[in-house]
């Protein structure tokens, strides 16, 4: 019978059952409210940005000589690049580590280790970013500074971010791998596939939707992370020449300057917030396209 995506096709049949029709309406309401939150937040950010966008326009955000909004200079390109670089580097480190450690917990680790492992990873997911930031600032940054000053850098930011994102990915990936039907795995075993071939050929493809969800959530957290990056990434608004150069992310920029910004400066920070939302939306759309193309 294939796997139906719904208990009933929504348009027919079920509508006549009283209890189901109000339930469906309630579910739709929940979905609309949840989805609508984004519009509410985005609308608010966009409204606050308009003031400066009328004055500055669009192109100056990439062509101005520097980012000094208090002096009327608005080049945000280095921060866009900084945001993308830290997030991508962090994901490159965190996705394999998260998925592999999930696979470890599922199939490599002794059974008794699984429960404590999950609890520990859940704990790791809940450590405040300030604590990661503090640790990065007092341990990681000086260590990198010994290799190459100043230490506060793209590398430090990506490492701390990776550490913060791994638990999110690992937890979701573990749940996704756990939902791979046992017969599939038994089938793989019956074909004499080894652990690696089973993982690559059977488990990962079967768990794909859950894994994609894990990476999406991880990426969201990486792009939006504020405090930890503010503390370790150096915050200099320049295009980095290497991983040892400091970078400033859009989120860190907002946190760093908002408390002291007024008028156009404040509006400019909201404009970078809008920019960040646009970037995230584009990434989500691209990921969605890629997903659908493969499906």
């Amino acid at each position: 019978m294939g796997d139906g995506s719904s208990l009933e096709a929504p348009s027919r049949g079920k509508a006549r059952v009283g209890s189901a029709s109000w339930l469906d309406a309630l579910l739709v309401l929940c979905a609309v409210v949840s989805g609508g939150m984004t519009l509410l937040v985005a609308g608010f950010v966009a409204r606050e940005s308009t003031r400066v966008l009328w004055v500055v326009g669009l192109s100056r955000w990439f062509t101005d000589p520097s980012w000094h909004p208090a002096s009327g200079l608005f080049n945000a390109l280095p921060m866009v690049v900084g945001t993308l670089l830290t997030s991508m580097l962090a994901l490159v480190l965190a996705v394999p580590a998260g998925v592999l450690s999930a696979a470890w917990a599922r199939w490599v680790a002794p059974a008794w280790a699984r429960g404590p492992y999950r609890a520990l990873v859940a704990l790791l997911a809940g450590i405040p970013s300030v604590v990661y930031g503090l640790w990065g600032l007092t341990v990681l940054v000086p260590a990198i500074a010994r290799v190459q000053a100043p230490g506060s850098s793209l590398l430090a930011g990506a490492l701390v971010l990776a550490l913060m994102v791994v638990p999110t990915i690992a937890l979701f990936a573990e749940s996704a791998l756990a939902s791979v039907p046992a017969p599939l795995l038994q089938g793989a075993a019956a074909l004499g596939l080894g652990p690696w071939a089973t993982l690559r050929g059977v488990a990962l493809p079967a768990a794909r939707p859950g894994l994609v969800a894990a990476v999406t959530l991880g990426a969201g957290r990486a792009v939006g992370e504020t405090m930890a990056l503010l503390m370790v990434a150096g915050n200099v608004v320049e295009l980095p020449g290497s991983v040892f150069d400091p970078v400033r992310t859009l989120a860190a920029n907002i946190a760093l300057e908002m408390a002291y910004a007024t008028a156009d400066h404040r509006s400019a920070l909201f404009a970078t917030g809008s920019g960040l939302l646009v970037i995230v939306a584009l990434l989500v759309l691209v990921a969605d396209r890629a997903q659908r193309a493969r499906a």
Partner: protein
Amino acid sequence: MTGTLRDRAYQAAASASALFLLLGLGAVLIDTFAAALPRLDLDFVRLPPSDAGRAGGVGPIIVSTLCILGVALAAAVPPALGAGVFLAELGGRLARPVRLSLEVLAGVPSIVFGLFGNAFFCKVLGLGFSILSGGLTLACMVLPILVKATEEGVRAVPSEYRLGAAALGLSRGSYLWRIGLPQAMPLVVTGLVLGVGRALAETAALIFTSGYVDRWPESLHDSGRALSIHVYDLAMNVPGGDASAHASAAVLVLAILGVNAVVAALGRWVRTR
């Protein structure tokens, strides 16, 4: 031959990843708890802070934090369950925009949530600096995580159950209530754990919404300082606050452990009910 080699490499890499994770956790946790030890005692969780947090404890702050978390979960869990079930079960033309929209929401920086919460909950809705404002702001933040978790959870329920329920003429409601949601619990719990972690760890979204006041809260309309804000303030703003900062962080970690245990127990109870 290459097969076994690859398998060994894979197992080594998987173990290394897990080890890396545990070491990272160990490094952060051990450093935190070692620095926390001199301040960590019963009085620390009982007393209100004094001398800007260098002395005294975090009693009122723990209470405020738990209230904020309670508000956030109470506000976020019901719509998240509904939206997650909608995406997994009903779908239709509305599903894609909702899903994409929530993925964008997941990438909004927490500071932007803070500013939004300040403008919307504190000012437009007139809630002011309060536990309520902070909790509702956090609810918006954890919503995408909870929805995603519920959707994946309901989706992962074996289709035989759904077919069996349909063949018995069960309504969607009773299927979800007795079978779908309980079966989705492991993933929902994962989402809750992540959401709780993110909410409790949040600083930037709370400073402008639940505020800075470290008095014992008397109602949800009172301003109440969250533990993570306390940690940030002590570590970054108060000279000589490091020991208290680490102790507060340790309390926060313990609180997360506690809340996670409760969430997991709740999930098990729902599943076996």
